[in-house]
């Protein structure tokens, strides 16, 4: 039976990846055709576009002006003027600076203002984003002029500017609504992510921090992580514990939260509001304060050891240097204390939507309470919460605070700049922030991202939320 389950899971994973592989292969095979289709419109414009379209190709908005589309023409011209002004004033130097990362080191002692490589990289990314935006607007300018030409050729009146604006508030409102978020996401989300990824390909960190000039080093940092003797053993030890931690803590928090929600959902429980309040109070206290309190509770001078010694026992080093597994268990417990309340609230909300007829029918068929839980409650709750469960798994995988606050500041024998309770994220912190190796830290964080993405994707694909989406809709 166990073998069958293993084989089934294995075949699902293999099936998923072979399915994805087939799709990727199909994608590349169909690529030439897709490109051909995509550029069919461009070819048409190049072949059929008249002199006015050509004018817009040379100077944005000029064709529109020739068609007496004044507002649009002027707007396109202003965009071009703004872009040129930006590039003349700083965009061009930002763009080149992205590749050089600076040529002149600053010397504040003599008031010599030099280049700041990190800022140059950031501004360089911005200039590339600006170029992409410009290209998009330039293409839209040509398309727009060609659409006007087509309308004029078929003796139709081209859409007025006013009408196009009205469309942006009606049929094409999605474009208006998404414009601002796209700019926001580009600046506040995509830009920092690209920046962080690019840092992994530089030598930024250690002695090379501004005002020293940073350089591009290609894949050197990844090569060092993979080849450095001290790294590999520590990486695999921490990675193994990290996986175990993420699975155990996610499962514990999830099922304990579900259990608590089921318990408080029972009709026989009196004063449910009060009982629900206690976990919420724990949830409301800031996490780091709770963790510091836990650290004190389990310290040698804390109340737990006080009680043990008062009772004639010997103080226990719950979190000290020898306390590998005790500290790990306390970490699990502290994490459960912090996260069970949110799981409970989530499960409470979902359980309130359960169809009581299902249970009624199950009872009539003689199903035990356990059977009802396994066959009705759990599949339903799992289906509804799988995306949350995956996000909790990732959050636990990258749970920095637990062991930083409970047992930070230890380097163990057999570990390179890490302790036996550190997770990858703590190790990353030790190396990048504590030791200023930002580029190595960025490279490790990319590896962590790949690992968590693969695991999350695999779990999601195997989950009912993915396989049985239609069943619950």
């Amino acid at each position, binding site marked *: 039976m166990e073998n069958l389950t293993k084989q089934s899971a294995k075949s699902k994973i293999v099936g998923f990846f072979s399915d994805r592989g087939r799709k990727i292969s199909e994608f590349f095979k169909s690529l030439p055709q897709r490109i051909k289709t995509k550029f069919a419109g461009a070819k048409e414009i190049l072949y059929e*576009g008249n002199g006015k379209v050509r004018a817009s190709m040379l100077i944005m908005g000029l064709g529109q002006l020739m068609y007496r589309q004044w507002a649009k023409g002027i707007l396109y011209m202003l965009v071009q003027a703004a872009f040129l002004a930006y590039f003349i004033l700083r965009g061009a130097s930002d763009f080149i600076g992205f590749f050089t990362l600076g040529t002149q080191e600053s010397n504040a002692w003599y008031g*010599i203002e030099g280049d700041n490589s990190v800022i140059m990289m950031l501004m360089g990314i911005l200039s590339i984003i600006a170029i992409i935006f410009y290209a998009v607007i330039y293409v839209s300018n040509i398309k727009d002029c060609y659409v006007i030409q087509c309308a004029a050729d078929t003796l139709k009146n081209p859409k007025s500017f006013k009408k196009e604006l009205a469309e942006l508030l009606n049929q094409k409102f999605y474009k208006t609504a998404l414009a601002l978020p796209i700019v926001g996401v580009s600046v506040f989300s995509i830009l920092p992510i690209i920046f962080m990824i690019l840092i992994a390909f530089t030598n930024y960190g250690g002695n090379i921090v501004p005002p020293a000039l940073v350089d591009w080093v290609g894949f050197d940092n990844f090569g060092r992580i993979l080849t450095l003797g001290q790294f590999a053993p520590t990486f695999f030890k921490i990675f193994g514990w990290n996986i175990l931690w993420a699975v155990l803590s996610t499962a514990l928090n999830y099922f304990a939260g579900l259990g608590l929600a089921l318990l408080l959902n029972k009709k026989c429980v009196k004063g449910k509001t009060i009982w629900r309040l206690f976990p919420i109070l724990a949830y409301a206290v800031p996490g780091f304060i709770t963790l510091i309190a836990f650290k004190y509770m389990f*310290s040698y001078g804390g109340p737990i050891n006080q009680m043990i010694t008062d009772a004639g026992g010997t103080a226990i080093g719950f979190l*000290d*240097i020898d306390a590998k597994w005790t500290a790990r268990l306390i970490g699990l417990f502290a994490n459960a204390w912090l996260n069970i309340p949110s799981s409970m609230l989530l499960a409470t909300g979902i359980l309130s939507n359960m169809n009581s007829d299902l249970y009624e029918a199950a009872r009539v068929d003689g199903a035990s309470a356990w059977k009802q839980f396994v066959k009705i409650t759990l599949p339903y709750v799992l289906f509804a919460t799988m995306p949350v469960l995956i996000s909790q798994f990732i959050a636990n995988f990258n749970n920095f605070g637990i062991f930083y606050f409970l047992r930070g500041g230890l380097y163990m024998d057999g570990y390179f700049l890490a302790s036996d309770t550190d997770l990858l994220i703590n190790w990353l912190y030790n*190396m990048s922030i504590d030791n200023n190796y930002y580029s190595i830290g960025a490279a490790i964080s990319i590896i962590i991202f790949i690992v968590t993405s693969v695991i999350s994707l695999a779990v999601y694909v195997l989950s009912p939320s993915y396989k049985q989406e239609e069943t619950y809709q």
Partner: protein
Amino acid sequence: MGKNLSALVAHIAVIVAIIITLGLVSAFAAGASAGQGSDRFTGELEEGATLRILENDTAIKQGYLKELLDAFNAEYAEYGITAVDANMDQYTDLENDGPYGYGPDVLYQANDRIMRYVDGRHIMPLPVDAIDCLDVVGEQAWMAYSAVSDGQTNIFGVPVNIQGPLLYYRKDLLPENWEEEWDDDENGVCDIVEYWTDLYRFSKQRKEESGGTQFGYMRSFLEPYFSVGYLYSYGGYTFGNNNTDPTDIGHSAGNAELGGRVIRQLASIMDERCIDDSVTTGAYSALASGEFFATITTPDVYTMFVDEMKADGYSDEFIAENLVTADIPKLPVSGDLEDESQGFIESKMMGGVNGYAISSYTDYPNAALAFVNFATSYEMISRRNELLGIVPARSDVASDVGGLSEVINANLEEGNIVVMPSIKENAQIWTPLQTFFQDIAKDPYRTPAEYKYDTLEKIKAALQNVDQQIYDAIFTLQ
């Protein structure tokens, strides 16, 4: 198609040409325009300057900063120079804030924090001839602010006060007959506070007699700042070449393992609280209640002990007479707290020198230097000592104040206070040392079969491992 394609290509070509031409021109222009620069300390005060002064929180809370600013502003009113509170976190990061104009003009911090800014040229090398207190501050204090840059030794900060640990103890808890039983050298000072061997013996006795509820000496070993001195006392050091060479790490050098054994022995006369830091904040009340007879900490927390004793109902007179601060006891040459047959050596402890530095990003270097000279004048340092209880780095103020200020100054000059290394690699020493100290303090509380440090060879090997960890942290990824 040809014409349209030409128009498209022409547009793209123009844009690309603009970007590349202007980009390259600006890159070369930036390189060419960078000159050699010149010395910014011309001696001419920048009239109308507003200086942002970063002081520590205690100086702000106790009102010292306000007094200092008022006095300086009155003195320099004729030049229109004003000094104001920078109103920033006392541990502001000049490296990240300074280049963008957010940092202070003058900053007061410990030597290790200030000197880590030297490599990035975030603080200015000071013109030695223009520093007023040059001759009245000891050489060791200046060493804390010296570094080689551009091939010559420069001074980057002006010392204000010396941080060095002291022994705090309760005189009333000494044995009544100490003059007969605990004064072998007959110098009128109880040996318990003069020699670690006697303090160890007394602590052992106190713990045994109280059934483990009262202790003699008690202090967590977790903080390397207070623990590494035992290694220094027997030949260990942090970095070679007077704490400037990070390739030479020496916590295991000389007979440093003897210092490790002293720590292990001291841990045995405390309880498990010496392993973690849970006893650190409780030390004030424990000394006040008499649970502890003595502990070691810095001079600036004296008032914390006083407050706790007052809260326990002791009168001011009683506290003044019985809460005593003293120099750190002497260690046995043997490195064994049960063997004083070979005599004693002075204890070395880690210390620090706080001082002022001038940001390289200031627009008013000459006014900033005038402020530093003013703030380190005899009058202001005396006032600082009065209000904040600091140990002045100025020898003239220290000798006028006398007492422990003089003792600590002497300790610094004699090398018994080892100033925290001023190089930025110092940031890597704490975690490996903290791990070792926690491990060795735990040893007496393991079962004999689990002992990790029961021989000097094992302690030596562990210290060598600490040195290797520090080396790895500094150099592996460089």
